[in-house]
């Protein structure tokens, strides 16, 4: 049951083969058994969770269930959920109980899904290994000595270890796709503006985007049907007609033009990962795809541009954590300035402080033009690279991450090495494009993800491209031995 697709679970619930309470309890039992080791969840509240499951069963009995009614979902702890501890992985918000629901949360509530708990994450989504979390690291279910990736590391481990039926994540520079690659499941970052950011704790507002993390493309499509949609409370939310993301899943791929950016297969890519990606591309050829060589010449600039813009926005977004109204406040202080300094020194971890310092610096008088403005200009060039590329292909493919999961502690003292984890994912955030990671095989028994990048609003097509691959491969059905 824990391995079943969302569609299968939905059918089992509809046929009363299992109740939502039973299904939910099965996951809760598994969480009880495995979470102390894996540390995927920060907050659990069985009472709340089971109350939702009971309500779902009533709704199913009443015959007005939707696709995800009664299905237990894990929520990244970046989403405010009323009555739930909502920490964003930080000491700063360790005591914060959200008094309102994020749009994503209320969408799942309206769909009748069950909230299993809040998943661990890098502090304020800043990190690629989940090691910056105030609540401790998360173990990669494939190898407990390794990281799950980040920042959505808790959701990633929860999906991979079957501690939930599916999970939500957010992706500012790769935080859904890189952990999906490292933990061997399917994750989608939608086009910027497709999922409302209301109630999603901001890291870098112009880059943040929520998306599904699940076992298959089909599951991601069902999750997207719940998560996506216009929300007037988010000014950057796009007012588009509601879509059914499952509509194109079964289309054949004959004639699909797949662009391979030469910059994604250059120096820096682990050779074994490269081989897995090559094999996946070969599979697509068999499915009728046509391969096109393309170039994204400004790819190399994406990391420096990102590490100007994202910290700039973050330095401002995180100013509200000042100890005045909620969250952590230093116990003793001499005056207002002392209160601010101690509160923020105690409440934020090293990586968050590093980014606040970078961001404050690049926005300062005298540096703004050289850093922030210049980075914005290059951001436009990066978007133009993709615009040009999509004249020649329908989707772009390449690795989602340069390597497989690395050892815990391996990169914690080398921020730049850590930042390079997002080399293949960051440019899509800068361009606002959708991207996904799909399990494509293994290297030394560790999962490797194939990245699929689509044009704006092409999520349904990308899900189709991934789904067809998952019809002829079984990488996405594999799960870590010993956790079965």
């Amino acid at each position: 049951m824990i391995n079943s697709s969302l569609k299968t679970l939905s059918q089992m619930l509809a046929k009363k083969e299992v109740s939502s309470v039973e299904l939910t309890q099965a996951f809760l039992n598994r969480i009880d058994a495995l979470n102390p080791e894996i540390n995927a969840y920060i907050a659990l509240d069985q009472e709340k969770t089971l109350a939702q499951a009971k309500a779902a069963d009533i709704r199913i009995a009443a015959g007005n269930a939707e696709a995800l009614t009664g299905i237990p979902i894990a929520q990244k702890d970046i989403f405010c959920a009323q009555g739930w501890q909502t920490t964003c992985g930080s000491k700063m918000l360790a005591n914060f109980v959200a008094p309102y629901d994020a749009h994503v949360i209320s969408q799942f509530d309206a769909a009748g899904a069950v909230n299993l708990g809040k998943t661990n994450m890098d502090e304020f989504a800043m990190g690629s290994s989940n090691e910056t979390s105030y609540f401790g690291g998360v173990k990669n279910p494939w190898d407990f000595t390794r990281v799950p990736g980040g920042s959505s590391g808790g959701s990633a481990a929860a999906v991979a270890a079957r501690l939930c039926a599916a999970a939500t994540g957010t992706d500012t520079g790769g935080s859904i796709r890189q952990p999906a690659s490292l933990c061997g499941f399917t994750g989608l970052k939608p086009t910027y503006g497709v999922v409302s950011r209301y109630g999603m704790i901001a890291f870098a507002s112009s880059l943040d985007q929520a998306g599904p993390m699940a076992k298959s493309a089909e599951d991601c499509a069902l999750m997207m049907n719940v998560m996506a949609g216009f929300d007037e409370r988010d000014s950057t939310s796009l007012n588009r007609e509601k879509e059914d993301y499952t509509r194109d899943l079964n289309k054949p791929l004959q004639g699909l033009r797949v662009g391979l950016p030469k910059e994604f297969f250059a120096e820096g890519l682990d050779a074994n990962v490269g081989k897995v990606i090559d094999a996946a591309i070969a599979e697509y050829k068999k499915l009728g795809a046509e391969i096109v060589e393309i170039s994204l010449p400004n790819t190399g600039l994406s990391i420096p541009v990102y590490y100007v813009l994202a910290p700039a926005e973050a330095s401002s977004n995180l100013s509200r954590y000042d100890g005045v109204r909620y969250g952590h406040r230093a116990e003793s202080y001499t005056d207002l300035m002392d209160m601010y300094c101690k509160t923020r020194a105690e409440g934020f971890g090293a990586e968050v402080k590093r980014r606040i310092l970078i961001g404050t610096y690049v926005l300062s008088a005298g540096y703004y033009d050289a850093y922030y403005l210049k980075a914005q200009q290059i951001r436009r060039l990066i978007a133009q690279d993709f615009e040009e590329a999509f004249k020649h292909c329908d989707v772009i493919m390449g690795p989602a991450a340069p390597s497989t999961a690395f050892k815990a502690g391996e990169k914690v003292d080398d921020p730049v090495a850590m930042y390079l984890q997002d080399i293949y994912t960051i440019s899509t955030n800068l361009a606002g494009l959708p991207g996904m990671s799909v399990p494509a095989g293994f290297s030394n028994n560790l999962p490797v993800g194939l990245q699929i990048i689509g044009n704006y609003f092409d999520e349904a097509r990308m899900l189709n491209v991934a789904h067809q691959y998952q019809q002829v491969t079984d990488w996405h059905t594999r799960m870590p031995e010993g956790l079965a």
Partner: protein
Amino acid sequence: MEWEVVIGLETHAQLQTKTKIFSGASTEFGSEPNTQACEVSIALPGVLPVLNKEAVNCAIKFGLAVNAEITPRSVFARKNYFYPDLPKGYQISQYELPVVGKGAVTIQVPAMGKSPAYEKVVNITRAHLEEDAGKSVHGAVEGMSGIDLNRAGTPLLEIVTEPDMRSAAEAVAYAKKLHELVQWIGICDGNMQEGSFRCDVNVSVRPKGSDKLGTRREIKNLNSFKFMQQAIEFETRWQIETLEDGGTIQQATVLFNPDTGETRAMRSKEEANDYRYFPDPDLLPLEITEADKARVKALMPELPEAMKARFEAEYGLTSYDAATLTASREVAAYFADAVKAGADAKPAANWVMGAVSAKLNAEEKAITQSPVSAVQLASLLKRIADNTISNNAAKQVFEAMWTGEGEVDAIIESKGLKQVSDTGAIEAIIDEVLAANAAMVEEFKAGKEKAFNALVGQAMKASKGKANPAQVNEMLKKKLGA
């Protein structure tokens, strides 16, 4: 050395919208602390701003009213600084691209001593939309400071002028004009006590004839025109004395103390924050089309300048009278209502600016609270026009109407103020006067024009003021063969 003062103003006008600029919380003044602080006002994690279109309409109205360029694509920016009453740690404002660009207002500077009244154009540099901060409350709880976020997020329009003013009188005339204008177009209630209209004044001095600006000091948060006048005068004297004593002026922010009448530096600009402005990624650029402008324009009242021109053309009023009547929308409406009710325009203008204003000023009343309505004034003026009463008698009637003694005709009747227009009666009075003042008649015949006026006076006196002066004049001329 002769000195010249150079003044520019930055005014924060609180916009009259029902809800805040970036959330649905109410903007009402005076509620219990933090009862109008929604999740956006408190800046909870995850909340986002959504622009209130009504605030944008207010900005467009202002732009149209000062003939300004309205920016087709303006940008909201974050002004970053830490303060307990600033919940997000940044204020959403506009920086490089404000919604309203260059414009101008014409001000009337009143006569002072020997210098006559004059008009002057003050150029507007820009006006931008931004949100207000909350308030710190000290001492409500012993030994603690509290924060009230009811005001946080209230929409403001910050209106910035060029350094065009050259005296405290000009600065005050501009502030008054702006104060009236924002109320006229209905974007601000103008309540200075509640902080709906606050002025910061930049003052510098330079040797007369110099075209280089001196170092300025900014007087913050002036909430009355009287204080503004006093503050600028003190600040100007202080700067001149400092320079004449060989000192230099440091750029600074100063506060005016109404008790001492002095300005004092609050902080020097050297210690000022670097606000690290950057475009707010949570808000899209604000796009305003020609159609938006046309739609707002259609909702706007006739502007004071246009109304002034119309009063001059339609009613033959002087420029000064027309400007005085259109200095306030309520006064203009009162005048227009009186004319509409049948009063002749010129006497109506004189009465509104004269007797009516004098009474209102004496009793510190607004014209909307006038005990004598525009229609009542018109009925009084009609009785002057149709010779029922004299101008002098009309003043008595007006006093009686003011104190609520009744309507015009009833008062004229009860006080016996009806003018005598009976030719026979007037002739009898004149004959009497001529007989009793033979000396004056002689003087007149000898060429002394003044004697004629004296005889008119005598006739009026004899009639106890009731004789129709025009008839007296006419008949007297006839009798004297003049």
